[in-house]
Every structure is written in C-alpha cells, then in structure tokens.
C-alpha cells in the first residue's frame, strides 16, 4: 500500500469538496482493523464521487459491501458521583443505564486499482431498524456494488435509494423476513439430532419435553 493521507486529512478534504457533509471517524475496537468514515445520508453521493474522482485518491474499486445489524441495547455504565452524605462528601459509584437506538449499517471497502492503495472504509447508517431503513445507493458510482447491495437488501432489509434493480437476490420474492438480522427467528422445523447441544438442545427440549429421543 502506498502512503495515503490520514483519515483526519481526508475528512478535511471531503468537507471542503462537499460543503455541509458530516463525516465522522469511527474507530474500530481491534488494532488490526482500520477506522472508517461514517457519512451522512444527504451528502453520500457527492462524497463518493469525490473519492472516486480525486486525483490523489482515485478509489475506483469497491471490493466489498456488507451489512451490519445493530439492535437496540441498554448499556450499563459505572459513573463516579460525588455525594454528600451526613456532611461528608464521598465519591460513590453509580450504575446508570443508557439506551442506544438500533440501526442498520452498510459498510463499503474501497480500493484504488490505479494508485494501488486502500482500503478506505465507508459506513452508511439508517435512521432505525423498522420503517426508516433507506440509505442512498452507491451503485451509480461503483458498479460492483449492485449485487452486494441487493444481497444486503435481501438479508438485512436496507433499502438502497437510486439502485437500478433492487430485488431479493438469494431468497424468493415472496419471502418477507431478513434472515441476517439479529432478531430473525427461523421457521421451526426441528428434527431429531443425535447429539444436540446449546441452542439445538433448547429446541430439542421444547419439542420433546419428556426428554430427548434416544
């Protein structure tokens, strides 16, 4: 990989090229994985076209597009609070619960075939997981996104606005679920297994309450 500008420098240049664009650098918990750029839905197309056309970047190849499901969750945090109890001020630890809203995410890995560098990772987020699940499609910018965005639409239910042919690609058109979502429940067609364990064991006990078949 050639030396490329840092994400901070890139963010400044993106905001100069697409005025008003909100770009957030999302760190990745693992040291080996590079951080990514979170784009806002309004300026995605302009930013994507800048990334493809800019002479120093020329990110002409979207190698991979994938989806991530982030369900709603409550995060427990320990917070140190100063409390005065009986005239003595003390530092007390309090557990606070915070709810984070759920959303769906599309992640794009971009490389440059011309300049042999990359990846630059983009993230697009939907507003929620239920009814506002649209993000702009990047297929008009990178043609290789077409089937992968269809797959994300199929398995995660993200609607890509501006996609030329947004249909299910793996499941049949009558199918209404999104199997890769965390809250997906597969049709219950359990059958006997000789050594059930974990989730399968729970299923086996539900189907054979008196004990698993021998």
């Amino acid at each position, binding site marked *: 990989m050639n030396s490329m500008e840092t994400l901070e420098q890139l963010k400044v240049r993106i905001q100069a090229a697409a005025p008003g664009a909100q770009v957030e650098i999302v760190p990745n918990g693992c040291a080996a994985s590079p951080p990514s750029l979170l784009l806002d839905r309004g300026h995605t197309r302009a930013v994507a076209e800048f990334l493809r056309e800019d002479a120093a970047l020329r990110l002409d190849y979207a190698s991979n597009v994938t989806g991530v499901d982030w369900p709603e969750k409550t995060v427990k945090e320990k917070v140190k609070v100063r409390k005065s109890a009986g005239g003595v001020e003390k530092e007390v630890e309090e557990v606070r619960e915070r709810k984070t809203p759920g959303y769906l995410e599309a992640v794009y890995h971009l490389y440059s075939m011309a300049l042999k560098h990359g990846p630059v990772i983009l993230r697009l987020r939907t507003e929620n997981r239920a009814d506002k699940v649209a993000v702009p499609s990047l297929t008009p910018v990178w043609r290789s996104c077409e089937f992968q965005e269809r797959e994300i639409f199929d398995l995660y239910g993200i609607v890509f606005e501006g996609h030329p042919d947004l249909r299910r690609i793996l499941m049949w*058109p009558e199918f209404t679920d999104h*199997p890769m979502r965390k809250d*997906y429940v597969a049709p219950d*067609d359990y059958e006997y297994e000789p050594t059930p364990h974990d989730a399968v064991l729970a299923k086996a006990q539900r189907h*054979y309450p*008196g004990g698993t*078949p021998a």
Partner: protein
Amino acid sequence: MIDEGLRTELSRQGVVTTTLEELYNWGRKNSVWPLNFGLACCAIEMIATSMARFDIARFGAEVFRPSPRQADLMIVAGTVTKKMAPQVVRLYNQMPEPKYVIAMGVCAISGGPFKEGYNVLKGIDRYIPVDVHIPGCPPRPEALLQALMTLQDKIARQSLTGDKRPPHLKAEAPGECPIPAFGKHDLEPPNNPALWQPPPMMRTE
C-alpha cells in the same frame, strides 16, 4: 416357480430358463439412465464417477440425459436450497415411471452442515421418495457406485404383480408429488406428510 437346483442343472446343460419378470428387471436394472443434474460439490464426484477412472458405464448408467422425460434415475447431488426445492420436485414429476431417486451426500439427506440454516431444505426426502441414501461430504465415487448397485438389487427384486408391486403399477397410487410453494417465511407445506413425518419421541425419562 422352477426349482433352483433344477435350474442350475439346466443351465449346465445349456438350457436357460427365466421368467418374464426377471428378464424385464434384468433389462431395466442394467440401463438406468440418470438425469444430468447437479446442485453442488457432490455433482463433481458424480461427474468423476461418470469418467474413465470410475466408469459408471460398467453398470449401464452412463447415459446422463439432459431431459427428465428420458431419465430413470434422479441423483440429487448436493445441497437442496429451499429456493431450488420446488424445481427439484417439478423435475421429479416430469420423469416417466418407473423412476428412482438417489440422495447423494449429507446435504441431500438431511441438510448436512447447513441443517441449522434458514435457507437449506433438511433433506430432499421431505418432498420426494428416496430409494438410496449415500452419506458422505461428498461421498466418494465408489460410494455412488455402491448406491447404484444397491438400486440395481432393488430393481431386480421388484415384482410386477401382487401387493408388493412398485407404486407406478398401482392405478390408485398418486403419480406426482405436490410441488411446494414459496411462502412468506418458509416453503408451504414444509414437507409432504404422505412421505415424511417428523420422527416421534422414542423415550421419555
């Protein structure tokens, strides 16, 4: 029926005795034409079986037919996804009687490594009657040949009259398997209850 000892004695003297049923089954079992049809990696082993090294032609089954109308045997070689299952059943229905099915590999038998998945059928025997199951992932060509020999034995033992005659000789037996429809969450129905039922509980403690 002719006595077995007399028959051996006659054949020593150059007199061949047979029955119409035996002659008919002998002809059928040595010209089983498979449907040219593969679903996943097991199909590669099936192709290897048809090539010179393993040579399925030794058993008279080398004529892989591209049309179900000309085929006697369906080798379900590979993973049957739920999206593909109606087409497999439709192909089976289009084959003329008498017809046979070999389920090749663990995917075709039970879903195999994908059994816990949402998109793979847990065994083709939920929709069509299977004559021979071959375990293996994928089974070696020898295993497919063994399955073919098992099927040949089965054909040779089929009687053409009486209660044990095969279903295609019974006028009242249904000629086709119902084709499952694509539902909102799963195939509808999830199995053909006339052919397959979930295994009952065998022991309680």
